[in-house]
Structure formats: C-alpha cells, structure tokens
C-alpha cells in the first residue's frame, strides 16, 4: 500500500464466513489508524448501550470490532450538554461507562421521589379540626354579613 493513497475497506460487504479475511485485512492496516478507529467506535458503542457479543454482526458496525479485538486504553472526547452549557472531556471507556451509569441511576431515583411526593401531597391535604373549621366558617359569614357591600352587590359607591 502506498502512503499517500486512501484505503477503503468495506467490512459491511463481507459475510460472517469471511471472518479470517477480515482479520487479515485489519492486521495490515496502520496500527495508529486502527487505534483511533477502535477508540471512536468503542465510545459510540457505550452511548448506544449495546452488549458485547463475540459473533460478528456486519449490520451493526459497533459490534464488529468489540468482539474480536482487545480494547486499548485510550481516551476519547465525551461531549455533555447540560443546562445550556456544552463541555467536552477526554475520558477513557471505563470513565465514560461510569458517568453514563451515574446519570441513569440519578434519573430513576429522582423519578421515584417525585412520583411519591406528588402522589402523597396531592392526595393528603392537611385537614382541619372540625370545631375550628366550623368557627372559621361562621366567622367568615359574620364578616361578610357585616361588610358594607354585603347586600348591595350591584350598586356603585
């Protein structure tokens, strides 16, 4: 292969039986290029939350590399959009996994708390003692009865 030309290897057109061919082709690619390709693919695979499977599935580019090749410890950019700000971090695959798991767990807890408080506070208003309630109603009636506008709702002052 000449250094200036671009090599395109189309893994998608290959069938499962051509596994050895694919492995052969991978071993001939520039190792640095390969590392980058694997790192970006592995970051994508975390985001997509796919499971690692040993069988090659050509339809899904993510699985392709994961089952066959040992993951190198590389960092990849993780972009986080939060509350109107955008941040980019270089994280390893393990770190990325941890961050995503944390985000998922926080989500489910707050959902529960919100649900339970919503249910409880809506359904159980603070109720008043009967004697006080009767007094406050009577007082309201007295208040309204004594108001100068009580009987003359339509008149202007």
């Amino acid at each position, binding site marked *: 292969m000449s250094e200036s030309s671009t090599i395109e290897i189309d893994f998608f057109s290959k069938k499962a039986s051509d596994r050895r061919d694919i492995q052969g082709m991978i071993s001939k690619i520039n190792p640095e290029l390969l590392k980058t390709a694997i790192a970006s693919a592995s970051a994508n695979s975390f985001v997509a939350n796919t499971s690692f499977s040993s069988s090659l599935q050509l339809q899904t580019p993510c699985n392709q590399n994961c089952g066959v090749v040992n993951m190198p410890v590389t960092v990849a950019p993780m972009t986080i959009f939060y509350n109107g700000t955008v941040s980019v971090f270089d994280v390893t695959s393990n770190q990325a996994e941890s961050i995503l798991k944390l985000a998922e767990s926080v989500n489910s807890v707050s959902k529960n708390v919100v649900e*339970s408080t919503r249910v*409880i506070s809506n*359904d*159980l*208003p*603070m109720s008043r*003692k009967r004697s006080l309630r009767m007094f406050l109603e009577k*007082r309201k009636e*007295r208040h309204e009865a004594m108001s100068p506008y009580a009987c003359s709702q339509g008149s202007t002052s």
Partner: protein
Amino acid sequence: MDDRSFNNQRIHGMSDVVFECVLAYIHDSRDRQSISLVCRRLCELEAQTRKHVTIALCYTTTPKQLLRRFPFIESLKLKGKPRAAMYNLIPEDWGGFATPWVEELSKSFSCLKALHFRRMIVKDEDLELLARDRGHVLQVLKLDKCSGFSTDGLLHICSSCRNLKVLFLEESQVIEKDGGWLHELAMNNTQLEALNFYMTDLSQVSFNDLELIAKRCKSLVSVKIGDCEILDLVGFFRAAVSLEEFSGGCFNKQSEEYASLAYPPRLCRLGLNYMSTNEMPIVYPFASRLKKLDLLYALLDTEDHCVLLQRCPNLEVLEARNVIGDRGLEVLARSCKKMKRLRIERGADEQELEDEEGVVSQRGLTAIAQGCLDLEYIAVYVSDITNAALESMGMNLKNLCDFRMVLLDKEEVITDLPLDNGIRSLLSGCNKLRRFALYLRPGGLTDVGLTYIGQHSQNIRWMLLGYLGESDSGLLGFSRGCPSLQKLEVRGCCFSEKALAMAVLQLRSLRYLWVQGYRGSKTGFDLLTMARPFWNIEIIPPRKVNCGDGREMEHPAHILAYYSLAGPRTDFPPSVIPLASITQ
C-alpha cells in the same frame, strides 16, 4: 369480722383485709395490672376493687368480658372512632356503637356512676335505656365528640338523672329539636357541678333556664355553652356565685354595652367567643386571677394577644390560634411563668381574615422554651422551624410530657430542614415525654432522623408520624426502638405495606396502628406479614368525599389494626373491610 374470717385467706402471711385496704389507695391502672399478675387471689381482689376502667378502643373487648373481669366498676370510659375522625377523615358510619355497651351496663353493672363515651355513635334509645335503668345513680355522663342522638335522648337523661353532677356534650353532633332538655335539667336538678354543650350547635336553649340552673345548683363550678348573647347572661352570671369556669357565648351588640358586666368572683377559667379588641377590657378586672384562657374562637389580632397576656401572670393553660404570633409567644414567655399547657391551633388560610403577624416560628418556640420552664404540654402549628429551637426545648422543658408539632404547608422554603438533630435533642432532653406527634413534609426528617425517634423515645406511648422519613429503612430503624409505644398513627409517609407489617412485628408494645397514605402492594397481601392471633386488621378503601362546597375530594385508603380479645367486628359498615375477607 366473723364473716370475713370464714373466707379468710392468707397471701404471703397477710390476710386479704390488708390487701384490700392497700389496694384502695392504688389508682394507677398499670400498677393495678402488675398487682393482678402476682397470683390468682390478688387478681380477684384487684378486680373486685377496681373503680375505673378505660377501654381505649371499644372493639378490643366485649361488654360480657368487662363484666367478668371488673364487675364492680363505678366509672367507665369507652373510645370508638380513630382520632382521625376529629379531622373528618373517617366515614361517619365507621362504627363505635354504644348500644351493646349501654345494654350490658344498664343490666349488670350495679355500681356504675360515671360513663364517658368518646367518638362513639350513641342513639336516643341508648340514652332512654340508661335514664330508665341507671337514672337514679348516674352522676357523670360525658358524650364527648359523639353523634347519632338528638335532644329527645337528652330529655330522657335530664328528666330521670336527678343526681347528675356532670353533663358533658362538647363537640357532639346533636340533632336539635328544642330546648326542653335544658328546662328539665333546670327543674329537676340541684346537684349539677359541670354543664358543657360547648361547640355543639344547640341554640334553642333558653338563658332563663341557665339562670335557673345557676340559682338552684349551688355547687355549679363549670359552664360551657354554645352561642348565646352574653348580655342575656347577666342574670346567670349574678346567680352563679361558685362559678370558676365559663366558655362560650358571643358578642353581637355594641361594645359599650358590655362595659358594666359583672362576672362571678371565683372565675378563673375563661373562653369568650367572638370577643374582639373593643370587648377585651371587660376581662381586665380579673385577668390576674386567670388560670386558663381559651382564645381559639376569639376575634383578636396579634397586638391584642400581647396586651391581654401581659395582664395574666397566673396563667397555666392557654389555647389560641396562630394569630398569637411569635410576638405574642414572647410576651407569654415573659409574663406567664406558671404555664403548664399551651395549644396553638391553625388559623384561617386566607390572609385577609388573620393578622399578618399571625405566624408562629422558631422565634416564638425558643422564647417559650426559655421562659415557660414548667411546661408539660405543647401543641403547635408552625410556619417555620429550626433545629436550634427544638434543641432549646430539649434543654429547658424538663417536665414536658406531650409534644405535638405540625409544620404548615404554606411556606415553600423552611429555614432549617431536615430536623434530625433537633428532634434527637428534644427527645433525649425531654425524657418524661409520653405522647409525641410530628407532622412535617417530604425532606423534613430523613431516615436517620426517624431512627433517632425510635432510639430516644423510652417512655412514649402514643405517636403520630406525618410525612417523616424517606424510605422503608427509616421505618424499620424506628421500629427497632420505641419500647413503650402502644398506639401509632402514620399519615402521608412513603412506607410500603411490607415495611409497615414488619414494623408492627418489631414494636413490642404496639397494640394499635392507624395508617393513611402508604405504598400499597398490588394485591394488598403484603400486610398479611403482620397477621397473627388476636390481631384485627381493617381497611377503609379509598373513597370520594363531598367537601360541602360542591367540591369532591379523593380520600386515600386507611389501615387500622389492633389487638382484640373479641375477635373480628360483627358490625362492619360498607365503608370498612376486614382483611380476612380480602384474602378469601
């Protein structure tokens, strides 16, 4: 003495006579309970000399069982509906029927002189039977927050019970047909010491009858009535020379007319309803004598409270709405050093109807903690709170037996939540506490705080937990403690059925549980974890309730569980379901 020596037995070398004499001086029911467990003979002696019994829930035993155990009681107190009924949370037909009790009491309890029904359904026929069979001996009748009867039933009582010393009807829902019952009482009775129809809607009574009662009953000490114009009571006040307590009445006329009103010379417990700023001065001449003041139904603002309380250095009991404000509590703390009982209730929610200053917070509570060191009972609705205020109470109020605090839900932000540390300090400092209620909001107390409550409540027998804790583990931590807890009420918490059931099994003194608001299991079967002999479990399913002003409110389900020697109830209304029937 010869008759006695024929049957004389000896217990530990001492004759029955000695024990009988000693037992006459022992009144505390727990002491008597311990004595009755010593040996069979002492159990019999104790049973024969027992004068008073309180049955905390009428479904825990039967009239026949009571007769077998304590045949000679002179006084009985029976309670029916759960406490939540006072807040309109329990269906009216829930139960607590007095009829089976009245039937047995009238027939078999020959020594009975005093009867107190609380939150029960009493019928006119029950009162008629009682009047007919016990009328000649009945001295005390208290129908306390009861319903189901009318003034016809009262007429029977007042006609036949000529020895009645106490007639108490406070907060009962009585169907009023006329005022004849009071007239009968005035005609037939000279023994009356206390008359109370406070907070009932009985309005057809005649003030002339009241005056007649005051004239004829020389021992009349306490009178609490409904709405009756105060100026009509001039004759009554003049005649009631022994009167120490008066509540009720109302002020409908011009303020000046009340200026010359004279009150009985020994009056020291007072509650004047609808009294406003202008009428307040009528209290001044005897304010320094006042031991008890009820301002729950007065029309005073914060400043009025400050002015009035400053004149009451001997005050021991105060009931007021939160319009008293922090400033009023500060005045109370400075002026009223003998305070024993303080109750601050929740006023109107609408701002126009109550004083702006009318909020109680950590400021007022701290003042009370530092100023009223003899306080035994406090119940308060607060709008804001801090841990420091609770710590101050724990440090200073060493005589506190009863603590109840509700955090109102009007303010969104509370100064200092959660209250874990403050509550721990309060509970460990106030070690005489027997009754405890804490009603907060989500975030008010963590699971750790709830566990603290369990750890520091050695002597507490009754608790109300409202919106406390965060999860089941809080409840389980709580239930590992509370060694004396007999009665538990839970509202608005997030506990699951399973956790509630497990908590019940851990709380070793628990005999009564009420819950509203919980995480139900799909089947309702998780509650069965607490199923065991003598333990009744009832459910009040969710229901829609008419609020009165056209609105309908959804009431969530309740769980009620209690020990009973009587087996499951036999008088379930449609609105209550025993758990056994759910599992069939």
